[in-house]
């Protein structure tokens, strides 16, 4: 039986847009010490890249639950509605 988020996301039907519906303020993310979003997101949308010193947003995996805007302690994540027919279909 599948266990990991990656395995589960693979099962889901979605139609990603070419542009992200989740926008982050990199200036804030850079100085954020907790990087909570990289832990609590049930789709692992957020990953910190130390090489690029920025937050990578894998919006294609998004389950559209909206936890990210609640969980970010600095209000750095802006969630917009994906366009009609895009995202979770």
């Amino acid at each position, binding site marked *: *039986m*599948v*266990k*990991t*988020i990656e*395995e*589960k*996301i693979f*099962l*889901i039907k979605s139609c990603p847009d070419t542009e992200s519906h989740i926008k982050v303020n990199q200036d804030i993310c850079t100085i954020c010490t907790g990087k*909570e979003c990289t*832990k*609590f*997101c*049930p*789709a*692992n949308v957020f990953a910190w890249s130390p090489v690029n010193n920025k937050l990578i947003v894998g919006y294609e995996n998004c*389950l*559209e*639950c*909206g*936890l990210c*805007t*609640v*969980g970010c302690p600095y*209000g750095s994540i802006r*969630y*917009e*509605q*994906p*366009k*009609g*027919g895009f*995202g*979770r*279909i």
Partner: protein
Amino acid sequence: MKNKHEVIIVGAGPAGLSAAKVLADNGIKTLVLEKTKKGASKNFYSGIISEEHMKGIFTNFFDSSGGKIMAPFERFVDQYRVYILQEDSFTSFNVQNNKQNSYIVLREPFNQWLIKEVQKAGAEVITETAVKNLIINDGKISGVKTDSGEFFANVVIIGEGVNPVLTKSSGLRAGEFKSNQIFSFVEEDISMSAETIEERFNLSPFHGISAKLFTQGIPDMPGIGYIHTNHNSISIGAGMLFSELISRNINPNECLERLKEHSCIKPLIANGTTKNYCSYMLPVLTLKNQNDKFLKLFSNGCLIIGGAALITDMLSWDVSAVAVLSGKAAAQTVIKAKELNDYSSNTLSHYIHLVKAIHELPHDPNPDMLNNFNNAVLQRK
């Protein structure tokens, strides 16, 4: 005016479609706008529908003789079961339900049936159309801007669910939840044969179980969960107060995996194949315990229903019942406004009284109940 309807409903979920059905049945020209292809497709997969509220709105719920259910369902709810899980033991009890008056449904086919019924009643449903903004003229909400054009109406009813992007961006809700005001849930749909389900849960064909799981006895998992037996799959979900989850550095999926590994649950789902996964939040902060300044339930030319209006009931068996009732209440409010030909906030404020009556139904969901589960469950049944 081009694209003019009497009412626009944003979101084809249980709340929005219930509103649409009541409005269309009363001859009101109604348009439902839905972002996805099928509506209600991104939240939970499985749920309980009690006929009590549904059959009055969706009159084709039963066939004309009143005997045979016409809506697509998985199994009758034969038993309500409560599991209280400890680290490596559990207690459970059953409440037998012989009335065959509530049903386990998969949201996707059930929602599509609701959409068809709404269309048959005369409402228009446009899918794959996301509402971006409200159109405001002279202080009155008079329509919506979508990614495929503008639509106008006397009233806009917002039923966009518990992640209400439009409600927030239009200022009807003041800001974001705090992390201790919501539960985060993930759910998985695990397929196995109908015979296996019936054997494991000791069920007759077409009979099913809806179970609530209280998991605070498991270390680091002070939350709740649920299991529904569908026809040939089992839906299992796990949730925790979001602030608890963050402070413990746990991912919602880990929460679910721990539940799946529990000695009580593991044998029930063994050898199944996961076919779906979803995530959603449910507010602990509901309409009843919110500060009036946080959310406006109505405005000039606008009403908010269902999850977007914090009209949710996490511990209920039929989680969508209050959403359905709020949709009906909004429709009744609009029917009255039409009689008076006045869609101002003054007339629409009538909605508040109807919504209050919904929340006086059985009980008040309250996070304290997690420490008081016996009460919660026994009061309910």
